[in-house]
């Protein structure tokens, strides 16, 4: 990568209403015992109370653009990394176009990506950076997502819970040759045999009519067996070699807030200590899909954990389907 692309600013919108996970488990007829509570490490999650996904996204975008001091009329690309169903059926409709209009980003072109769980954020990050690098005229990009959970579907895999889903929107502004964290490289790898480890079986062509199938389902057995941290470890090794950066020079990791157990497995597998990963956001917001990266990035900056010039990474196993690792420098 010859032309540097940096993160100029980021912002998150969280709905004001919050629910404790105990009441959510009760509502969804799932069992919450001390063992499950310890594995999840999630106490409460933000939940929409009438707010629309695109309204939350608009607020996050406006704040991110304000922080980046970028005139929206100059914005070149809008990239949507939402992973949950949107206001109309995707891919026939995509929120990025509604946002283009509501923001007044008249010259921007819009793109959206599907699949890969939280890793969809890294797909958006890598693709947006490539568009800025490969196209002379394109100078800035806005990454955005708004994920609102399907009603009654907050406990992922209720029979053996893996996470609790919150509602949120996130936005991040990238600038070519801008100040802020620099994206050094991103590795992405997919295992197509795991395309249906985590998906919504109903509501489209395969099972259009069954309301019981219109919910996020996880195949826990295949999820558990998928080589998640091993794959990420190998990918990080490749990225570091390519960038000429030593492993010990990576001082922090942005990682999804799926659960305490999942974060621990990642830390153990990658050789990170507990203070090199943010756990507070997991505890108080649960899993916000790709917006986990944005909220964890903001917390990392605010905490001052990483100094200017130090390296950090963003990594996600994408539920065993789409693994991604980005190497960045503050």
């Amino acid at each position, binding site marked *: *990568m010859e032309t540097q692309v940096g993160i100029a600013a980021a912002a998150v919108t969280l709905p004001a209403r919050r629910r404790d996970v105990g009441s959510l488990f009760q509502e969804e007829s799932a069992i919450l015992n001390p063992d499950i509570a310890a594995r999840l490490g999630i106490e409460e999650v933000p939940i929409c109370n009438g707010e629309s996904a695109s309204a939350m996204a608009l607020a996050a975008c406006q704040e991110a653009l304000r922080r980046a001091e970028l005139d929206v009329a100059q914005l070149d690309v809008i990239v*949507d990394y939402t*992973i*949950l*169903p*949107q206001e*109309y*059926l*995707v*891919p*026939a*409709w*995509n929120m*990025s*176009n509604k*946002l*283009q*209009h*509501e923001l007044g*980003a008249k010259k921007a*072109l*819009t*793109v*959206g*990506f*599907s*699949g890969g769980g939280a890793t*969809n954020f890294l*797909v958006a990050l*890598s*693709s947006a*950076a*490539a*568009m800025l*690098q*490969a*196209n*002379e005229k394109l100078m800035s990009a806005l990454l955005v997502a708004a994920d609102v959970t*399907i009603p009654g579907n907050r406990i992922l895999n209720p029979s053996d819970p893996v996470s609790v889903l919150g509602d949120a929107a996130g936005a991040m502004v990238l600038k070519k040759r801008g100040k802020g964290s620099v994206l050094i490289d991103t590795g*992405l*790898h*997919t295992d*197509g*045999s*795991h*395309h*249906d480890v*985590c*998906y*919504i079986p*109903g*509501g*489209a*062509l*395969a099972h*259009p*009519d069954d309301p019981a199938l*219109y919910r996020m389902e996880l195949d826990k057995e295949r999820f558990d067996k998928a080589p998640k941290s091993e794959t990420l470890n190998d990918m990080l090794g490749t990225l570091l070699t390519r960038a000429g950066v030593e492993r010990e020079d990576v001082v922090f990791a942005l990682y999804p807030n799926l659960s305490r157990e999942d974060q621990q497995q990642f830390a153990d597998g990658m050789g990170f200590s507990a203070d090199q990963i943010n756990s507070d956001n997991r505890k108080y917001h649960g899993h916000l899909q790709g917006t986990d990266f944005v909220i964890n990035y903001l917390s990392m900056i605010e905490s001052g954990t990483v100094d200017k010039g130090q390296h950090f990474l963003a990594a996600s196993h994408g539920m065993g*389907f*789409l693994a991604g690792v980005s190497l960045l420098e503050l």
Partner: protein
Amino acid sequence: MNTGIGIVGASYYLPPKRKAVTDIFRDEQIPAEPLAANVDFQRDIGIEAVHVASEESATSLGLNASRSVLEKTGIDPAEIDLIIDFTSIPEEYIAPTWSAAGIVQKEIGATDAFVTAVNTGGCASYHTTLKVACSLMAAHDRYRTALLFAGDKVPEFNHTYYPITVICDGGSAVILKKGHEKQQILSVEVATLGKLHDVWYIPGFHRRDPADKDRKWLHMTANIPKFNQEVIPMNLFMFRKVMRGALNLAGRKQQEVAYYIYPTFSTWDQKAFCQAFMVAPEKVFTDGLQRHGHLQETDMVLDYIDAIDEGHIKEGDLVMLTTNGAGFSWGAALIQH
């Protein structure tokens, strides 16, 4: 500008079953009155029959096209670094949570690839995907060979996008390679008008009326007054904008374009394009309209292949692929043969 990326090959797949448009109009209860003084939708559409997937899945349409292009080009699936699904209507499972790209990766054995799906652009999603794929390939050495595919299957009784066209089911696939010297992609330009985001849309399961037994919530829905008032006045202006953009990026002039690939919507739409841009009708591939009608974003691939195979595009020709998409998106790409 020259992306340094060429089209190694392209293929399409059409399911064998066909349905006459007269039967489609009858089954879908399409209005019989003329659209305008000189345009009668049913009489003038110019489409005789469309292909219907029936029991074949949307994914299988894209997969068949992908297998076909691999066979045609002799590319080893292990060489493929990047797979992008550019389907523009719903597939087997809900997007953006899922796309067919994972199944295609698994079935063709492209074990080293990174796969994703571009989920915006409507019928211009091929252009949006070309823009993304060419950017990734230009920015990274590790993306050298890419497979782009789409598989579109409309729900039963949703073949007519009134008052625009009649939809055919089918799939398409294209292989791009960095450094491929033939069929070079010189430039890709995409423009979107976000205020038109809801002219064409599919309501979705969460908006369904439980009393709706015809699954209208899964059908493409048009805001026709908005289409007439806001899309029609902008359409040719936006075509001009993206075609000029693609020409400027490549440093070429409109007079140098030897052939155009344009969507197969209707006779009156093709005529309006030729008149507006003073393009001779023989420089635009129109034969596909009668044969199969409109295949969403796959029009750009299918008509391109047929135009080459039938001798309309020759060595040395500069080819413009241009389309609009879902009322809000326009794309243009220049290919040097």
